[in-house]
């Protein structure tokens, strides 16, 4: 095979947009006739052209619903002593110095210190729920971070990020984490591959908030985790069946049915698996898993 190391990417771009004239088309054809990589690129762009499938809209709805549940809150810009804050402190100090003559040094010094202390204490920390199941994160970690500046330049600054929430004051009564918080913590553990911890958190969610929507959905997520993450098809099957037993026409029915069939496949329960695939095809004829379902249902 002839080696051609210089690839006419500009011609390839124009070809993709349908903007080649005859001469350019001939040049590109001459090149791709001998350059396997460019011939592959041209062919692959066409090969990947059709990736949309019927039923995508419903699938996207489900994916977005799940993603919104897992999405972190939009990060607020870090609050620190700003120029305006510093200015306020100076203003207080000037006021204090003006007062010095009138009220004496001690009073003025206290006045000057007060706003500075307030500035150090701001902002009041958000109340944080610490989930005892979560592994303790490192206490403090320095990381470099790009902070968007109001003008067009980037300010790269060293910032200490408080990773661990401050411990709750002892006097404050412990709060049971909400279903949303438990689901978020479980999903986080799952994404970080802390599977045993994720399993515990999903189960805790199901026990603590059995009637919540999060608990209902968690049966499918936990099922997939047990199936693919911890290789426990029996446990996975139980979770999928619990989800399906909750009622008809639920949002993750299709996923639960696919999971159930896969769990039965891994358990080697062939006849039940066949029935499960048939059931999937009957309820969801447009399923993305139709090819596999048809093949396994035979």
């Amino acid at each position, binding site marked *: *095979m*002839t*080696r051609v*190391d210089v*690839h006419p*990417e*500009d*011609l390839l*771009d*124009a070809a*993709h*947009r349908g*903007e*080649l004239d005859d001469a*350019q088309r001939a040049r590109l054809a001459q090149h*791709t*006739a*001998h*350059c*396997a*990589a*460019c*011939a*592959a*690129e041209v*062919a*692959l*762009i*066409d*090969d*990947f*052209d059709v*990736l*949309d*499938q019927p039923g*995508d809209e419903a*699938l*996207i*709805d489900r*994916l*977005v619903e*799940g*993603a*919104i549940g*897992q*999405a*972190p809150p*939009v*990060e607020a810009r870090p609050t620190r002593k700003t120029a305006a804050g510093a200015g306020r402190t100076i203003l207080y100090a000037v006021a204090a110095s003006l007062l010095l003559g009138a009220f004496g040094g001690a009073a003025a010094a206290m006045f000057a210190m007060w706003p500075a202390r307030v500035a150090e204490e701001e902002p009041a920390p958000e109340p944080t729920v610490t989930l005892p199941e979560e592994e303790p994160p490192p206490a403090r970690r320095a990381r470099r971070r*790009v902070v*968007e500046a109001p003008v067009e330049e980037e300010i790269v600054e060293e910032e200490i990020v408080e990773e661990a929430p401050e411990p709750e004051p002892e006097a404050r009564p412990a709060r049971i984490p909400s279903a949303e918080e438990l689901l978020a913590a479980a999903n986080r553990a799952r*994404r970080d591959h802390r599977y045993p911890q994720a399993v515990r958190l999903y189960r805790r969610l199901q026990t603590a908030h059995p009637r919540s929507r999060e608990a209902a959905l968690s049966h499918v997520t936990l099922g*997939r985790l047990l199936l*693919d993450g911890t*290789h426990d098809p029996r446990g996975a099957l139980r979770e999928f069946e619990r989800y399906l037993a909750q009622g008809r026409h639920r949002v993750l029915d299709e*996923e639960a049915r696919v999971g159930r069939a*896969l769990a039965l496949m891994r358990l080697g329960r062939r006849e039940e698996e066949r029935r499960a695939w048939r059931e999937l095809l009957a309820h969801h004829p447009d399923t*993305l*898993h139709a*090819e596999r379902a048809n093949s396994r249902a035979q």
Partner: protein
Amino acid sequence: MTLRLLALGSAPESRHPGPVEVTDPLARLLSEAASGDRVALSRLLRALGPQVLRVARGVLGSSHPEVEDAAQESLVAIAGAIGSFRGECSVKHFACRIAARKCVAVRRRAKARDERRRELASIPPPPPAAPTTPARIRREALRALLETLPEEQAETLVLRVVMGFSLAEVAEATDAPINTVRSRVRLSKEALRRRIEEDPALAETLEVGT
């Protein structure tokens, strides 16, 4: 909100067109989402869903068991990154870049897990599936290549080949100089060429002269 987008030059040889001001309909949604509006975030992710799903299917294959996980992880990553969007490319390109990176990572993770599982169970790797169509052979070859390329090259290849981005669009989406993108494309195509040389079935689908 207006964004700087590329006006593609009429002359194909000129790939450094000047920027034009156009309105990105998703930029306003992104801005609202970035200020904490969850409804706007949901609408934004729905609007980006088709692109994200396309990237996930392109990188993993439609029947890969983790394709939906990859798409959802991409959406979560996009939601987490909206605060860093600086309007230097379209919102869709920004999202595709995040999805490309995430989906390649999911594919690599799935492969590593599969290999580990096989090692533990002493199961030999499965024989390669019988090729069906030339397009499928080429797609699978590209996906296998993505598992081995350096991250930036893999990301560039996904944007260029799976999503059909021009060099300039890849440069904007990845925030890299165009010559860096050229270099990444060249290196990834070299790897692709080596793979084609090693695989006669793949070479046959391309009808390239020897």
